[in-house]
C-alpha cells in the first residue's frame, strides 16, 4: 500500500513531442503528489506538484493530470526539448500529516532527440 508504481521505465521522443509518464498508487491517504527531475550526478529537483482536489495543474511546459478514482496521475511535457533529457520521478506523501515522508516511483529515463 505504500508503493508508487511508475511507467514506462524509459522513453525516447523527438524534439517537440509530448512524453507522458504515468504513476499509480494504492494508499488513498496520500494527498500530495510531486514530480521531480534528476540530471546525472545531481539531486532531484522539484518540478511541479498536485493535490487530489485538482484534476490538472500546469506550470510552464509541465502538466500533471490527476485521476483520483483510478488512483493514477501523470506528467506531460509539452514541446519537449533535448535539455529535458533526464530521469523523472513521481512521488506521493501524506501532505496533511506530521511527517514528510515521500514515497518515490522507480523513475523514468527520458531522452529527447534533436
Amino acid at each position, binding site marked *: 500500500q505504500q508503493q508508487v508504481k511508475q511507467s514506462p521505465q524509459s522513453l525516447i521522443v523527438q524534439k517537440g513531442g509530448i512524453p507522458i509518464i504515468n504513476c499509480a498508487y494504492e494508499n488513498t491517504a496520500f494527498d*500530495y503528489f510531486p514530480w*521531480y527531475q534528476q540530471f546525472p550526478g545531481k539531486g532531484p529537483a522539484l518540478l511541479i506538484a498536485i493535490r487530489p482536489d485538482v484534476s490538472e495543474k500546469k506550470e510552464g511546459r509541465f502538466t500533471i493530470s490527476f485521476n483520483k478514482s483510478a488512483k493514477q496521475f501523470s506528467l506531460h511535457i509539452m514541446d519537449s526539448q533535448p535539455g529535458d533529457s533526464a530521469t523523472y520521478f513521481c512521488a506521493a506523501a501524506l501532505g496533511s500529516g506530521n511527517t514528510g515522508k515521500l514515497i518515490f516511483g522507480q*523513475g523514468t529515463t527520458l531522452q529527447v532527440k534533436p
Partner: protein
Amino acid sequence: DAGVTQSPTHLIKTRGQHVTLRCSPISGHKSVSWYQQVLGQGPQFIFQYYEKEERGRGNFPDRFSARQFPNYSSELNVNALLLGDSALYLCASSFVGALYEQYFGPGTRLTVT
C-alpha cells in the same frame, strides 16, 4: 539564495568502517530529511528531523542514525558499513508547515569497497 548543501561530495570507505554525512538546509527551512538512492532506483526515505527530534524513520537498520543541530543542519551516520550501503545519500529540507514540499541537495556519493 543558496540551496541545500551537502558534504562531502564523494566518499570511499571500506566495509566495517563508519561514515558521517553532513547537510545544511535552505535558509528558513527547519526540517531535514535523508534519503538513500541506489543506482537506477528512486530515493528511499531514511529519516526526517525537525526541532532536533526524529519525526519519521524509514525501514533501515539501526546502523543508520542521524541528528539535527540547533542551526537546523543535520548529520547522517552509518556504522559497520556494508557493500550494499553504496549509494547516493540525499538530504532534503522543507518548512515545518509543509514537510512534504522537499528540496533536495546534490547528494553525497558513498562507495563502500
